[in-house]
């Protein structure tokens, strides 16, 4: 009996190790990172541009968010990460605009994929600078962006669809040795680790979103009749009936409760299903397609369009060029498509 258990544990450890190595260390195509880099770069540029109008109003001499306020409020929660935000050093309007412009240039370079290894790290520092300077102003989109940027630092995000790639191809035309080296770098372990980290993090986010909706808040004080709107089916109504957030007036839904009740249920089912079934290769294209109308519609009622876009961009980590060919009838592989996860 002891030998049986011992053998089982050895097999378990061996198989787990093999699976772990296959999951994290199989070289892969960095193409999804390239697509994500461009999309994320554009989103970051948008977020950065929207700060331009309020830069002095927020961080200037008579700003709404003086450094002392942030330090006071942050020290109550966690340690003070001031040193990661260069914005603490600037209050003069001209200086603020200069560092803001430098940040914009870094983001442009990151988006076009110039010196991507460096500009990705710098873009992360730019994003973290705003994130830590004004935590009261941040929402999910900043955290999603930082998450993607952090993980992209580990992979060759500029290996495809980038200026770096274009320059490398030009050099390869005249340098056969470099051309061979470039061909060998068509797949990389760095890309796998980067993409896998985004995938794992994203599926955790989806699962937590679903669970958070179902579980209710940590504390509901002084009321005995609180009902979880996600259970009761009117969560979407509560979102749509807010005065400032939604982009469109959807209060006409009061006449058609089935619409917002069905919508509420669809959101919950989708989020939990995404967190679990995205790892199934057959379900993956379906979930990625469903994600588009789901997040677009949520953007309308929640007013968090940038966050919804960030979620769609993060979903690109599950996209691959293989996906297009694998399910293409012309490839004749439809019947043999493996249903295994990964």
């Amino acid at each position, binding site marked *: 009996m002891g030998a049986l258990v011992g053998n089982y544990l050895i097999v378990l450890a061996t198989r787990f190790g093999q699976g772990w190595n296959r999951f994290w260390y199989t*070289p892969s195509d960095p193409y999804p990172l390239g697509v994500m880099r461009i999309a994320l770069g554009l989103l970051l540029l948008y977020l950065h541009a*929207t700060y331009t109008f309020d830069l002095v109003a927020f961080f200037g001499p008579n700003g709404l968010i003086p450094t002392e306020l942030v330090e006071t409020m942050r020290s109550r929660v966690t340690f003070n990460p001031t040193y990661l935000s260069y914005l603490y050093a600037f209050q003069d309007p001209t200086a603020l605009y200069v560092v803001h412009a430098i940040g914009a240039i870094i983001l442009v370079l990151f988006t076009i994929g110039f010196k991507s290894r460096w500009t990705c790290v710098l873009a992360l520092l730019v994003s973290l600078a705003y994130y830590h300077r004004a935590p*009261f102003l941040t929402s999910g989109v900043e955290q999603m962006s930082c998450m993607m940027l952090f993980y992209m630092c580990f992979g060759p995000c500029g290996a495809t669809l980038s200026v770096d790639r274009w320059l490398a191809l030009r050099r390869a035309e005249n340098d056969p040795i470099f051309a061979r080296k470039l061909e060998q770098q068509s797949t990389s372990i760095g890309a796998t680790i980067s993409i896998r980290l985004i995938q794992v993090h994203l599926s955790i986010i989806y699962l937590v979103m679903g669970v958070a909706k179902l579980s209710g808040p940590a504390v509901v004080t002084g009321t005995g009749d*609180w009902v979880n709107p996600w259970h009761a089916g009117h969560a979407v109504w509560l*979102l749509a009936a807010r005065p400032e957030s939604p982009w469109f007036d959807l209060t006409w839904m009061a006449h058609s409760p089935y619409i917002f009740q069905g919508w509420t249920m669809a959101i919950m089912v989708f989020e939990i299903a995404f967190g679990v079934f995205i790892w199934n290769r057959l379900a993956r294209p379906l979930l990625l397609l469903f994600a588009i109308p789901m997040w677009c519609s949520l953007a309308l009622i929640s007013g968090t369009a940038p966050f919804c876009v960030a979620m769609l961009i993060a979903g690109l980590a599950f996209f691959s060029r293989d996906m297009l060919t694998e399910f293409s009838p012309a490839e004749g592989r439809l019947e043999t498509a493996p249903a295994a996860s990964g």
Partner: protein
Amino acid sequence: MTRPAKDEPETTPQLSQGVRTFITFLLFLHCFALGVTVLYHTGAASGLQQALFSRIRTSYYVDLLGLDLNYDLHLTHNTGADFDHVCDVVLDTPQGFRGDDEQIARQSLKTIELMPESTWPGARRRRLLGLGLRVYVTAEQEEVASNIPQALAEGLLAQNNITEGKHQFRCRVLEPRHWEEPGSEMDPRDPRLYRDVYRADVISAGPGEWSLVKVVSEAETTQSQDGSSNNSTAPQSSNQGGSQ
């Protein structure tokens, strides 16, 4: 994507065993920190979850890199923190000002809005609504309740070149009506739908310096006398930080 490329061995020996072990160790640490964060931010955290998050300092790591999951995970739980919060400063308020819009209109009082109606939807609007939310979330934490309102009031007044006088800072919330209640077709911006969550008189304490004195409503006074200051829409001491 993550499948082995054509004509590639399943795992190309690009990394030595030692490097791979080291990376695996880092991945484990990272996943552990994420796992603790997830446990901490989903519902009420137990003592163990809180200890893992704060004492082992996984919070340092995730917060430093912006990987925390304390944002809009639930979208709404029908608590006060899930609604829209708007702030403004009513200028030159008369004695006995009650903070309602009717009085502002009747007495032609001027207001400086933190988020003017013309503010573009999208990121700018979310940031300003986020500021209003922070006022709400901290409103009942005695030691910090006035920190954000003070900064906002001082900033708004200074940006409008107002250095003297007595004004009032207001933070208001709208609780959406139940869909079955009559009036659900009302204009969502109807002033009658707003409720004060924080009001403070902003009193000049010298040129360009201001002090805040919180205005306690009659309802709050009655509640505190009854010893039951909590109500269903009071700020939650939730570790989820509210939706943003």
